[in-house]
């Protein structure tokens, strides 16, 4: 396994109290595999990504758990070691590529910077490498575009540049945080194709963070569904879509518009996320909105292994 | 408003301190002249240049006038000049900036050029020139102080209006049947007022300094009228001979007043912003 996350818990100190943003999150991603982390806003999927790369900021803290990247524990790593890991062994692309790129530096140079720092290339080799990378991410006329500034490129092009920066040092793990939100569907398809292509040619593990279950279904081999800081279900994509076992996954599927079926066939998810600042959060954070809740939901949740790598965090799975 | 005031003060004690100081200054301006322990103009040459003591808290000046009473009485004049000039420039500069930002085009050009023209002068020298040309009366000091602050108000109001002109809620207001003037006054302006209030508080400080500065160089209020700037000017000569209190206390009062308005600016923004209300 390239990435093995176990029992990851994160808390944020805020003025209104301690927010238990993640609680015992666990999953694994193999080399060349894409795992989608799916959930609604507030589920903690982005927090997971930031925690893995040590980008939580001053208010957030990892309170428990481990995250092994090719044997190195990212949770225990010093900030210095993390800085070395980021970019070289684990890279991240963000939802807003324009904001993540340096606005006053030519995109070719931004890629060359990474190549020089992490791949140890010389100035000239890095510059040529950057043009090659731009060609690799499907940017037409890469030699000319290397001299462009981010504002001169469209959103889709910026995301490709961002991907080129991220994969420049051939990292073992790519975390893609909503990489195509805000892009058109046609551009989204191209960007996702690009990520998939790089993942398979470099043997890179990909953690795809998205709110879009359909995108996850199309692009990931396995899906982990998150709700209120818990991973509630992990399974092979087909198994999860065709036969969800956690009540929340089922409701999420029932709310996702499809290519067929009417509005009446869709159902919203009743209730709201529990307040994660509460001291007395129940063991199952979905129990309060769950139609299948039973008496045992008030006691510590077991991971039910349903075979074939299908695991669900529920007392009363479907 | 009261609740949010309490919330902000509770969160930031410095703001509370600034508000307390502000209240004290306003109180001094309101009741100072009637409550001063001594007549600020009555000279008593027998008691001239006394250092601070139990009777004369801030000591006395070369004519034996009580410096504490003079500082207290001067509050009304100094704050009055500052408040009047700030109110004037807020109305004129604020609306000019609002119109420039909202309508753009030639209004924007005209307002911008006027502001640029004012900015082209060293501001204090411009104020001196205006007062020297029009005569050094209190209304002219108010006018000069307002004019040199004009570009600042235009810029703040214009920049904030330009941002909000494009905001979704402005379109929403048009859809809701608001005409231009109504969008400007009822939708855009209330959103700009907090920033303008902060600006007013900050420029109150500058305005006080400016009025005192004009008086200091003899182009403002004339002696024997008590005014902080004149008092510092009159006392400056005595520092070398060891009578430090004549200049120090009016200067300290001036500093505290300016400091108070600067602190107040930040606190005011928090109180007036609905997003800070919880």
């Amino acid at each position, binding site marked *: 396994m390239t990435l093995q996350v176990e029992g990851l818990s994160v808390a944020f100190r805020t003025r209104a109290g301690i927010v238990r943003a993640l609680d015992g999150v666990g999953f694994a991603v193999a080399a060349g595999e894409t795992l989608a982390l799916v959930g*609604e*806003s507030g589920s903690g999927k982005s927090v997971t990504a930031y925690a893995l790369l040590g980008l939580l900021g001053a208010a957030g803290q990892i309170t428990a758990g481990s995250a092994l990247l090719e044997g190195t524990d990212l949770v225990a790593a010093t900030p210095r070691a993390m800085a070395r890991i980021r970019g070289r062994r684990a890279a991240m692309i963000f939802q807003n590529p324009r904001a993540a790129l340096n606005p006053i530096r030519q995109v070719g140079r931004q890629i060359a910077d990474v190549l020089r720092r992490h791949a140890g290339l010389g100035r000239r080799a890095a510059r040529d490498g950057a043009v090659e990378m731009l060609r690799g991410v499907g940017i*037409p006329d890469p030699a000319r575009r290397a001299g462009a500034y981010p504002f001169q490129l*469209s*959103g*889709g*092009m910026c995301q490709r540049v961002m991907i080129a920066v991220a994969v420049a040092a051939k990292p073992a793990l790519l975390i893609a945080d909503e990489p195509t939100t805000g892009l*058109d*569907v*046609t*551009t*989204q*398809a*191209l960007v996702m*194709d690009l990520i998939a292509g790089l993942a398979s040619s470099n043997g890179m593990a990909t953690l795809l963070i998205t*709110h*879009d*279950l*359909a*995108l996850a*279904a*199309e*692009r990931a081999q396995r899906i982990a569904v998150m709700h209120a800081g818990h991973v509630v279900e992990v399974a092979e*994509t*087909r198994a999860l*879509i065709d036969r969800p076992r956690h009540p929340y996954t089922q*409701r*999420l*599927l029932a*709310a*996702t*518009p*499809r*290519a067929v079926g*009417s*509005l009446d066939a*869709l*159902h*919203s*998810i009743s209730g*709201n996320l529990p307040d994660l600042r509460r001291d007395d959060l129940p063991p199952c954070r979905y129990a309060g909105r769950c139609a299948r809740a039973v008496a045992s939901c008030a006691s510590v949740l077991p991971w039910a292994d349903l075979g074939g790598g299908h695991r669900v965090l529920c007392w009363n799975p479907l | 408003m009261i609740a949010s005031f309490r919330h902000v003060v509770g969160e930031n004690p410095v703001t509370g301190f600034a508000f307390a100081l502000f209240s004290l200054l306003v109180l001094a301006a309101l009741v100072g002249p009637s409550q001063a322990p001594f007549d600020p103009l009555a000279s008593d040459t027998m008691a001239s240049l006394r250092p601070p003591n139990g009777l004369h808290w801030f000591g006395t000046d070369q004519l034996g006038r009580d410096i504490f009473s003079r500082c207290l009485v001067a509050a009304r004049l100094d704050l009055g000049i500052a408040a009047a000039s700030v109110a004037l420039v807020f109305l004129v500069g604020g609306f000019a900036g609002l119109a420039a930002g909202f309508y753009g085009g030639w209004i924007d050009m005209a307002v911008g050029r006027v502001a640029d023209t004012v900015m082209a002068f060293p501001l204090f020298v411009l104020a001196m020139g205006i007062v020297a040309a029009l005569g050094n009366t209190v209304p002219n000091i108010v006018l000069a102080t307002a004019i040199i602050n004009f570009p600042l108000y235009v810029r703040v109001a214009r920049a904030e209006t330009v941002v909000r002109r494009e*905001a*979704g*809620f402005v*379109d*929403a*207001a*048009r*859809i*809701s*049947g*608001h*005409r*231009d003037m*109504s969008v400007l006054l009822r939708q855009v302006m*209330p*959103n700009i007022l907090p920033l303008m209030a902060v600006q007013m508080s900050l420029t109150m400080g500058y305005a006080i300094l400016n009025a005192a500065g004009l008086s200091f160089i003899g182009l403002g209020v004339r002696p024997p009228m008590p005014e902080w700037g004149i008092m510092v000017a009159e006392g400056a000569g005595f520092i070398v001979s060891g009578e430090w209190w004549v200049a120090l206390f009016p200067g300290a009062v001036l500093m505290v007043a300016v400091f108070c308005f600067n602190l107040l600016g930040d606190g005011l923004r928090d109180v007036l912003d*609905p*997003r800070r*209300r919880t």
Partner: protein
Amino acid sequence: MTIPLLDVAELSRRFPAGRRSWLSRAPGPQVHAVSDVTITLGRGEALGLVGESGCGKSTLARLLSRLLDPSEGSIRFDGRELSFVPARHFAADPARRRIQLVFQDAGESINPRFTAWDAIADPLRTLLGLRGEDLAASVAEAAALCGLPEALLGRFPHQLSGGQRARVGIARAVGPRPDLMILDEPTAALDVSVQVTILKLLAELRARLGMSYVFVSHDLNVVRLLCDRVAVMYLGRIVETGPAEAVFRDPRHPYTRALIAAAPALDGIRRPVPLLPAEPRSPVDLSPSLCAFHGRCPDGVERCLQERPVLRRMEEGWEAACHFAGSKHGALPQTLPG
């Protein structure tokens, strides 16, 4: 034949691109945001407007909601020509009440100094002249229609959740009881579970109040759920329009096909349709004599560079602007007319 509620003919809007030199009298470069759009909308009908970002769908929504003046063309609303009323003066027009807009970002479209109640009350006050108890009753009614509990009405937008803000935005538009509601991606920023409730609310409001919708969205699956008809836009022009279900099942224009194929499907099976390469053409000074889709189109030939395809009738109420769009399935090359 009854008059359609909305009858838009050859509507265009151009924007100057960059500044024109003050030395030259020649017209500067122009962005053709909306070109020659012709649509009709019957009473109670819902039309979906789809396309990529920059295709002009939002500009068209602003033209139809009369926030923006067209460069050319006509907008007839209930038989009355509206394009002559400048957008600046439209706030005072009697039709203002009848055409309302729901914004994409509900949070941004509510004045941050307004509570939910103020926001809903605002159009009722200005457009209907309601005051006092009448106003309070109407606000309560609009809020109730949109499923907003009274307890939330005193809150400021930043104190509401995304779904609640969307409801406030809808309640504000519904309050004056418009005949035409233009919805500019009202669910784009919402989680799927909230999106479902908002879509159901919109469907229910339309059925109950008999409003017509123009629904702007980039999400075809969502448009299909809410709309009877759909118009697909590409670089300012409508390239295909027809019954929503039929267009999605059997798209005739290659762009529509690509758009539908690119949308991820929950069944996870990628359709083997060639993806659109590269980027769209620049909308600046777009040549009127070629097909704007040429270059990205899998079927493009020489003819597409010489002659811009016009909208041709495929079936009853179904048109596509492609030389190769057959009246039946598949891309059948057409012979040149004449």
